[in-house]
């Protein structure tokens, strides 16, 4: 994330006005263990560093290490929760958050992190996740049933149009819920959710996809047979990587592939227990237990009619 100098200047002003040098350094050490302000400044420890100089040095360093948003996150946390039993009021905090928004980043209060505003830009890592760092994600996997058969039976052009329509359905469902397609092959893909109520967002995205495919098959399909999909949702830790192959090696992703291919009926969604337990009853009640689930607890949803 490239931070505008005006935002850095405002934050320097805020930091200098809100706390002493010691606590500024303590917060910096949370992000960069061993961070030594005096060493960075080149001052002997016997000479006190003025607040404004300390603030500028720390924030310049944080920005260079791409940790500027993280440092502001800490300031938000310190204001709301205090630090070591002491309360701090961070000056200009509202203006800082506003300036972040102008730069295309919004504060996600649930994960306590700045994230890119999906209305302004969408990057694979929400503009904030770092390579090789582990995060807890909720994944949604989608697979087209009997893809090879469909490809063999129908002209390539029709298949291409159909799969493009399917991708549109998926994009519409997930983008407004801040999901990211991490992998998309001809016959399906993997979508990641990280922010806000990610389990709920993944589940309602999947339900919407099932409903929209029903309407698509009834009204807009291009093939002479309906398209069917299997959807699975599972959450867990995963090391973020720009490399799709690395992502596939992770246990959580391997598990969701297993749930989708082994325990999901066509035109249905299977969710793992770790996702199901977090859902409000209004959604959880729509899912029924999967009977043969190999010892694990899975739940499925399918569109049924009176």
């Amino acid at each position, binding site marked *: 994330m490239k931070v505008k100098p005006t935002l850095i200047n405002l934050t320097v002003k805020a930091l200098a006005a809100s706390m002493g040098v010691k606590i500024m350094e303590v917060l910096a050490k949370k992000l960069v263990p061993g961070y030594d302000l005096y060493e960075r400044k080149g001052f002997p420890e016997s000479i006190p560093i003025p607040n404004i100089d300390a603030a500028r040095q720390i924030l310049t360093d944080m920005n260079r290490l791409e940790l500027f948003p993280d440092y502001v996150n800490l300031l938000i946390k310190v204001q709301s929760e205090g630090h070591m039993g002491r309360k701090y009021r961070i000056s200009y905090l509202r203006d800082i958050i506003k300036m972040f928004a102008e730069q295309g980043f919004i504060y996600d209060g649930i994960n306590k992190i700045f994230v890119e505003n999906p209305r302004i830009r969408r990057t694979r890592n929400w503009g904030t996740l770092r390579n090789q760092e582990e995060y807890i994600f909720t994944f949604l996997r989608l697979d087209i049933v009997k893809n090879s058969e469909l490809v063999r039976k129908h002209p390539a052009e029709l298949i291409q149009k159909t799969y493009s329509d399917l991708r549109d359905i998926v994009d519409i469902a997930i983008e407004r819920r801040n999901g990211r397609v991490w992998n998309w092959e001809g016959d399906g893909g993997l979508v990641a959710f990280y922010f806000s109520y990610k389990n*709920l967002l993944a589940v309602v995205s999947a*339900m919407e996809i099932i*409903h929209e495919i029903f309407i698509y098959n*009834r009204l807009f399909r291009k093939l002479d047979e309906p398209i069917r999909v299997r959807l699975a949702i599972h959450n867990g830790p995963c090391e973020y990587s720009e490399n799709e192959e690395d992502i596939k090696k992770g246990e959580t992703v391997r598990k969701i592939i297993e749930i989708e291919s082994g325990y999901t009926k066509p035109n249905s969604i299977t969710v793992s227990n770790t996702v199901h337990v977090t859902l409000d009853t*209004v*959604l959880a*009640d729509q899912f029924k237990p999967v009977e043969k689930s190999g010892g694990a607890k899975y739940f499925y949803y399918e569109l049924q*009619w009176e």
Partner: protein
Amino acid sequence: MDIVVFSDSKTTGRFFIKVKKSKKYTLQLHPCAELKKIVKKVRTGSFVYYDITNRSEEDIKKAVRQLDGLGTIQYGIIDPRGVSQDIAEYFHKGASDYIGKQLAKDQLTGKRLQRVMDFGIEKQQRGAVKEEKPEKPEYILSGSDWKDVKTGSEYTFIIMLIELDGSSRLKKSYHRDQLDTLLQRFHDYITYVTEPNNGRIWMSMDTTWLPLFPFNGSRCSPLLTCFRLMLDRNIISAEDIGFNIPLSYRISLHIGNTVYKKRGDTGQIVSDTINSVFHLGQKYAEPGGFYVTQEVFPFIPKGLDDYFIPAGVFEGREIRRMKVPK
């Protein structure tokens, strides 16, 4: 009562010997060729039989058209050789009786004739109800958007009524502030889904909203919006409303005429159409149901046709209900 039989067969009269004996009925026999001339003079309430033996298909069609067209009599078909391929078609076209091969071997009894008469009367009454249906109004197309719609003028609109079910339960369950939040979120959601189709929430009260859509005579896109509202109700409940309750609502969709006035100035509007939509949504519709009037039927997409099932007649209009997704 007069039983008037048109037949070219000399033996037809014997089917009616028992009827003739009854003093309740008088029997008249005429050749088929005289149908056109005589049938006009037949008294109202008479029963006419037409014998199709040796008649061409064209003659039969013509005769049925003439008999049905009178509207003042009931009629039946005599087919002693059982040559008709589609007997039901006679009934579809208005006949009340059919004397086929088997029945023609026996004689027609007064009892059977009475049953036929009763059936015919009931059918006529049903037909009368049908005739009472409000006449299809002259559509005054409001267009595809609002640019030509002027306040104070009458137009045809697509009218949607959506009402939360169990409003008294909601009022008991939630504090006023919470309820206001819930209703505002639902209002916002209705706005969000209707605006892309140029819908405007025209009236709203308590737990009822009435979005209005311009109608160009060829499309009724709010139908699919309502279909989605029914499909996605649990998604909407969980994601857009919150409160962790499964929200239930009923929807009615109609196409009809009303004078247009700006939102907020609608209090003085006297509109049968609007009244009817309110009655349908509030008195007839079951909780959790989506109902469409016969004016909307032509716009049900073919692929979704089997998801709309007959739901009776209300205020003279045929109604269909969307099957409920479980």
